[in-house]
């Protein structure tokens, strides 16, 4: 079976610091969801997620390496759904340094300076990737009748 590769069009979405959510599952079968501030493009077959203070998520992927990530591309009107498998954690080196710098930039843009702190860069293999366009809805509803 061939390796899943991240398509080139996802790279600018990830590099824009787009928010994402992550779902993991403990060994005893309890799912856990969390918002993540960064999905880092490592190479065509790997992505890295920041380990900051999501202790349950971190525990879960070390018990059960499977993870689900959904990246929201608001400008592109699409979700990117990634199924991942945890491979390793890095606390130094080029991936860690690049993520650390990106996290500081995101923290500063979102008023979270001093709160976001990278403890490790967790590197995952991409098992699958899927682009799901936003579903259509009537824009007129946005200005609906005084509700």
């Amino acid at each position, binding site marked *: 079976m061939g390796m899943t590769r991240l398509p080139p069009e996802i790279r600018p979405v990830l590099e824009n610091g787009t928010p994402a959510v992550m779902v993991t599952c403990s060994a005893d079968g309890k799912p856990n969801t969390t918002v993540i501030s960064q999905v880092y493009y490592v190479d065509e077959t790997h992505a890295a997620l920041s380990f900051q203070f999501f202790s349950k998520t971190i525990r879960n992927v070390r018990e059960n390496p499977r993870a689900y990530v959904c990246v929201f591309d608001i400008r592109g009107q699409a979700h990117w759904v990634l199924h991942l498998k945890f491979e390793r954690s890095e606390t130094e080196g080029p991936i860690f340094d690049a993520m650390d710098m990106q996290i500081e930039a995101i923290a500063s843009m979102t008023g*979270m300076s001093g709160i976001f702190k990278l403890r490790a860069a967790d590197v995952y293999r991409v098992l699958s990737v899927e682009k799901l366009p936003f579903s259509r809805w009537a*824009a007129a509803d946005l200005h609906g009748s005084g*509700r």
Partner: protein
Amino acid sequence: MIPGKILRFLEQHANVAFAGTRNRDLVPHGHKVCGWRVGADQRTMTAFVAEEFTPGLVESLRENRELAVTVEEFPSHETYQFKGRYLSDRPVRHDDVEIVDRIRRRFVRSLRSMYAEVPESILGAFVSNPSLAVEFEVLEVYLQTPGPGAGTRLIPPVES
């Protein structure tokens, strides 16, 4: 029981949510939630799931009943996670769609300054149309707002 402070957060401030489930092989899956309603007894919640995120959802819930839903106010990042047990599912009703419309307007208002160049119709499209309502019993509530307290269990309170 969901406390009043969190109830007010859910009803007046929160604008983004996502649900997590897992299948029989412990593979996690995510489901975009575009609206929510708290039961009158404040012990149950109903999550309205976007149509494109429903495949496999009901099968997993009926198989193991495990569900987690994270609800956030963006851009303040106040966030709570609700973990519980699946009770039932049904197609969305008109009054559910009205709740989703309110959340969509709240979401667009919150993001307008950050995405000034993006038309409101595009921002609004982020809050997808719901197709399925999933009711669950809330067993645990966790604080997930970024910071040192993230991950703290609020309900039931942790014994000191």
